[in-house]
């Protein structure tokens, strides 16, 4: 009898706790993210939600995140809260599975350009988790040896070109001024500096715009006399790798290069400057690489999901993430954080990445509704000119033709 009672009682306890317990599932990247988000959940989310009986689990999606998330959304298995990369925003919004956050979350504390990156048709679909922008990262030793002044935050394109050309001349054959990726991922920032727009009002891309040509000619012109080279010329896969070799003075990269250099070239003395300004517009161009927190429109626990999202984007969490050196926070108020005032190379880089988001023509890094293939004509043109196979005018003409074909598909 006693045993029966005990069993009944424990059963009752189990069912009641199961009924009251709400589980919020989060989908995000694999890699280090499970450790980072797991840490945030343990330190911040759990204590805050303990009394609400909300448990939070993080389910990483390994491999191609966008593909996995699309599958899960289609199957109705996606998390209540998930990462939403800004570059694939339009595709996911089109599915109707992302909850518009207007009136659900206050967006005013976040950097304006970041909110714009997650806005489509006047509605905000994500709150930036963190972000990155491009900066100019340079090897101090090479500039010292060549007796050329370091790149600084007031440099124009012409200034940068002069510095790099002098450096190359003084150091000779073995050394190079800058590593240039034949890729829109880096070149696009220069195109934006001229005031060029990725898409016109009809959604078409104009590559014969003189502003685009100006940026194109500057970027490919840096390769003249081997002042600029592509990464493969020093057996590397990306421009951060070029810096590591100690043979290349400058690379255009974001905050991710800091950890890379710390691990792979621990004794490299590097500095960071903002992207150079366009000679005519006197503005910088930059990309915003950002991933946001979004809520599944099909969630059964909207209120709980909103609570979780608010905690994950709270000032306390963002400050922690910044001070641990994990990511750059999206709240504009954190620009005053003491971490940014430190003098070490990594902190300086973080500060300039943060500043980059609100200085000049800053656009979200995206390929538009047709996906990554959009950039192919531009990449081909850059590769053809950087390797000396085509003249700039020919390459641009061909690129425009390819672009038209692609966009009329």
């Amino acid at each position, binding site marked *: 009898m006693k045993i029966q009672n005990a069993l009944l009682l424990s059963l009752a306890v189990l069912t009641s706790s199961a009924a009251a317990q709400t589980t919020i599932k989060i989908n995000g990247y*694999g*890699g*280090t993210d*499970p*450790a*980072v988000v*797991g*840490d945030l959940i343990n330190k911040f989310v759990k204590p805050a939600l303990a009394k609400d009986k909300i448990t939070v689990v993080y*389910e*990483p999606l*390994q*491999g191609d995140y966008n593909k996995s998330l699309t599958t899960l959304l289609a199957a109705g*298995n996606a998390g209540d809260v998930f990462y939403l990369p800004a570059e694939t925003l339009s595709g996911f919004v089109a599915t109707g599975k992302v909850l518009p956050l207007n009136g659900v979350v206050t967006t005013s504390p976040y950097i304006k350009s970041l909110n714009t990156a997650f806005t489509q048709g006047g509605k905000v679909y994500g709150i930036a988790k963190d972000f990155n922008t491009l900066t100019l990262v340079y090897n101090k*030793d090479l500039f010292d*040896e060549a007796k050329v002044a370091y790149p600084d935050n007031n440099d124009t394109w012409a200034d940068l070109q002069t510095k790099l050309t002098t450096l190359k001349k003084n150091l000779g054959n073995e050394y190079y001024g800058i590593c240039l990726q034949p890729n829109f991922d880096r070149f696009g920032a220069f195109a934006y500096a001229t005031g060029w727009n990725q898409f016109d009002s009809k959604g078409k891309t104009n590559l014969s715009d003189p502003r685009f040509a100006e940026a194109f000619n500057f970027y490919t012109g840096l390769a003249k006399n081997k002042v600029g080279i592509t990464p493969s010329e020093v*057996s*590397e*896969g990306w421009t*951060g*790798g070029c810096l*590591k070799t*100690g043979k290349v003075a400058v690379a255009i990269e974001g905050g*991710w290069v800091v*950890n*890379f250099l*710390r*691990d*792979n*070239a*621990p*004794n*490299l*003395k590097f500095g960071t400057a903002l992207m150079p300004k366009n000679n005519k517009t006197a503005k910088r161009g930059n990309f915003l690489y950002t991933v946001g927190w979004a809520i599944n429109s099909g969630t059964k626990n909207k209120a709980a999901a909103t609570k979780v999202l608010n905690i994950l984007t709270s000032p306390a969490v963002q400050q922690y993430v910044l001070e*641990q050196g*994990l990511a750059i926070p999206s709240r504009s108020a954190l620009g005053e954080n003491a971490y940014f005032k430190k003098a070490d190379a990594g902190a300086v880089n973080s500060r300039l990445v943060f500043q980059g988001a609100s200085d000049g023509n800053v656009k979200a890094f995206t390929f538009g509704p047709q996906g990554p293939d959009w950039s192919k004509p531009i990449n081909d043109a850059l590769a053809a000119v950087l390797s000396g196979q085509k003249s700039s005018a020919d390459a641009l003409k061909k690129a425009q033709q390819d672009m038209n074909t692609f966009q009329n598909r």
Partner: protein
Amino acid sequence: MTAIQAERRAAASGNDAWLTRRRWARAGWLYVFMLVMSFFFLGPFLMGLLSSMKDNPNEYPPKVIIPQLTAQYVSRAYNLGIQGGNSGWNGGLTPGRQVTFDVSVRSPADAPQDAPAVSLFPYQPVSLVAIARQAQAKDYAKLNTVQVSQSGDTKVYRTTVAYPSLTAQTGEVIRAKLTTPDSDVKAQLPSGEIVKVTLDTPAAQEKQYELSESQKVELVKAGGNYYLRGPLFERTPMQVDVQRGQSIVDSTLPPSDKQNFDRSFAFRNVTPGILGYTFNNYRRAFNETMDPKSGRSLFFSWVLNSFLYAFLRVASAVLFCSLAGYALARFEFPGKNLIFLGAVLFVQMVPTQVNLVSNYVLLKDLHLLNLWGLWFNGLVAAGGVFLMKQFFEGMPKELEESASIDGAGPFTTFWQVMLPQAGPALIALAITQFQGAWNDFFWPLVLLRQNTDFTLTVGLSSFSQLYGGQGDYGLILAGAILSAIPVIIVFIIFQRYFVDTGSDSAVKG
């Protein structure tokens, strides 16, 4: 006549010589062919093995003779390991010990004659648990550099890295791991007991808030109290800079990185020990993938998961395939051909991707999105049933007939007569199943969600996702080599069992 005979004899012996030459030439070609083939098959593996030991696996042109495999440097790494951590294999820097490291600097007459600038620097590769900041040798050890000798314009400088203990107490020295602190610093002893750590000197108190959770430390037990001697360091990263005009000509260990026109040398670890020097990336694969929740190495769990999965797959395949194969080969029952066509042949013709969605949904509803679900998904291998059926069909019927004359039922016949004969087929089945399970990527990737559940293949893909972007190819290579080794061993051991049964000789006449 004799002249003709002699001519013939000469022609014949010439022929013999020609034949011998041909025979040798043919053997030569065969050997060359086999050497080339083994080079093609083993080359990438050996190159990967070699590169996984280098500081820069990407180096171009790749070197074949590397310091990590040179007796002189390996023995120095061993000595440095003993000096720093009292262990020639594991190395490291522990409280109360000191290490000496020599650097030779050439300073021509017109160049600065200063001693090189030597410093320690923080070095902690980004890992799966990048958030747990480990203490750095830089903040605890002291350096002292003196000139010890000179020949011509080359001076030899000796740097002593001394790591004083943070307490003066003496007694039993215990290694422990720090746990979540409250108002006191707490540590977990190897026995599992959690104790309060006493910081009895100003030097120790200074570090109270710098030591993070999961940091390994050395304590000394005296009078019932545990005093902090200091954190344990796996690495002692050191940097040597000389001025323009000077050059570094020699050092105890070769540098891992050179910058500033070879005037800046970085040694990622001056107390490596052999494991930290030659097998650094292998050690990292295990040590730097700690799961923050359980404190266990993820890589180690992946290896165990892979072995468990492979073992389960082999066991179930051997059991079910031999039973099903025997039934299909020897028994007569209605629908036998239909089962063979439908469940064995047709199933093999359908690509696995076709039933991806249905199997996934089914396993999800059964709450089997884990290793057991993975096993369940591949429980019976249709190919294996086919193999066993064909094998049993090839066995002489007389064996079974004689068994049944002796009064054996169908199961006894199978178990005691047929199965013992099926050794080679079972081993072939086991090898292919083991290899298939070990290398299985598609289903584990689809089904396994938690990184503690991964098999090695999925784990390695997350490795390359994680470290590939960071250019940490050494670690990826080390992981790949480790995952290739079991398959190679299994094949080498079991390939000699690929022999005939001898069942032919069981039937005479």
